[in-house]
């Protein structure tokens, strides 16, 4: 079943900038697709188009927008709400009754490993913990499709690897379809079923790699020669795309 499909999607901003050009891609339910590309190649624009925050200037998108998970680049937690209240926010916006949204929030907080921090305010959380809370917030509504906009770009390497491991386990357990944007090649190869390489502006998909490693993927996979080889190929493609 197709979860998300782009058909020759193009985006030209009013100032004439061509952000993305002729992007066609399909994500089946249970697939985790990552797009890597140089800065400013229009990767984030693709997510905004997918979610409906932006209207493309050409092409069509097929996705169910009623329940779409969107994990932002920043944690975007509301600073005046505790972790629990933040995680409850989406259920609240969708008018879900209090008891039910508390149950959903508790479960989601446990899933991301933040139990015990329910009553903390964002200002007392580390960057990685904020991202977990942000992830938990998205999880409450159990969206079948997740869009990730470089969510782990701002955390340190070790935390990032932890979060990659956990996101990958989560994806395995929940079976959602994911479209993940990143700069990091190891992150892309480690989590994805498929890696797409995007060119510099205007963004086009220039290469596509199937990732053969079975799930669940263990952290040590990162030191596997096959992993290094695939990462190398993606890196070469990215370098080519940069010119």
């Amino acid at each position, binding site marked *: 079943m197709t979860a998300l499909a782009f058909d020759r999607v193009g985006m030209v901003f009013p100032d004439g900038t061509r952000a993305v050009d002729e992007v066609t891609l399909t994500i089946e339910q249970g697939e985790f697709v990552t797009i890597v590309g140089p800065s400013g190649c229009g990767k984030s624009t693709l997510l905004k188009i997918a979610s409906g*925050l932006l209207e493309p200037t050409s092409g069509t998108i097929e996705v169910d927008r009623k329940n779409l998970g969107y994990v932002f680049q920043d944690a*975007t937690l509301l600073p005046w709400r505790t972790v629990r209240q933040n995680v409850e*926010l989406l259920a609240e916006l969708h008018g879900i009754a209090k008891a039910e949204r508390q149950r959903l929030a508790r479960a989601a907080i446990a899933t991301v490993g933040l139990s015990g921090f329910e009553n903390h305010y964002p200002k007392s959380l580390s*960057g990685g913990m904020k991202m977990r809370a942000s992830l938990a917030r998205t999880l409450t509504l159990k969206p079948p499709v997740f869009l990730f906009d470089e969510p782990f770009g701002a955390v340190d390497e070790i935390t990032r690897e932890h979060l990659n491991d956990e996101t990958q386990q989560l994806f395995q357990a929940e079976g959602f379809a994911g479209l993940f944007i990143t700069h990091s090649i190891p992150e892309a190869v480690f989590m994805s079923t498929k890696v797409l390489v995007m060119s510099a502006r205007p963004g086009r998909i220039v290469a596509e790699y199937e990732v053969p490693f079975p799930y669940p993927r263990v952290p040590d996979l990162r030191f596997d020669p096959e992993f290094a080889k695939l990462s190398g190929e993606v890196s070469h493609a990215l370098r080519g795309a940069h010119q």
Partner: protein
Amino acid sequence: MTDVDQRIVNAAADVAAELGELPPDAPRTAPGIGPGRWFATTVLPPMVLGAVLLGIWYVVSYLVLSPKKRFLLEPPHRVLTEGFLDWDSFSEILQALWSSTRVAMIGLVFSILIGFAMAIVMSQAKVVERAVFPFMVTLQAIPILALVPLIQFWWGTGQTARVMVCVIIAVFPILVNTLFGLSSAEKGMHDLFTLHNASRSTRLRKLMFPSALPAIFAGLRISAGLSVIGAIVGDFFFGKGDKGIGQLLRKFANDLSGEQLLASVIMSSLLGISVFLAFGWLQNRVIGKWYDSAGGGGR
């Protein structure tokens, strides 16, 4: 921080360490400032400066001014005995102060209501903001002293006129800070609300208004002080009607009652300070838990 709090923080830090992450405020070393040091670095300096200033005051009263001119600056203990401890003059000061406080508070309440209402409308409709803003700036730019005669000309010297002086100078900081605060939520947060089809009023209540609170409090503190000034200035220039601290200042100056004049000045500044502190306390109560630099003054 109490022991219980400390234990909770420690427990939290342990869990965080297990997760491989430390919250930014996790205690790493025990805080080493004892009560003695705190006294020496925080309490002592202003006390020393205060003593020095009192000393200068005495020097000016007794050594600089000749006895004939001493009424210009009576020494501190005379201000205390004649201005504060003499019940007849002090009760007069207190009564006038109460009258001015009432005017200032009513003016502040109106400033808040008007400022909020205008800021909310302006934040919802840019065209209103563009229409109104130049006039607000113009009004703000007219010196209040130029407006007082006009207000007296139209509305007399009663409560309404007095409150109006307060509102004219106090409404602007609330309006500007609230307006600025309402637009301070990050774009990503707005996107989040957009993605989940939040209505205009939900967005205003759950996103824009709470994120405006720190700026609103900064504005409140400025406006509260200005409202006190407005009450005193209005009363001073009206010069009649219900007697406030402004009229009293003028009367004591005309009577050459230096002690009472200084006592009134001190009481007026105490009023300003207590209003400022009260709003600081309120700010800390409302947003101190989540806002990083709450209590650290306005922007």
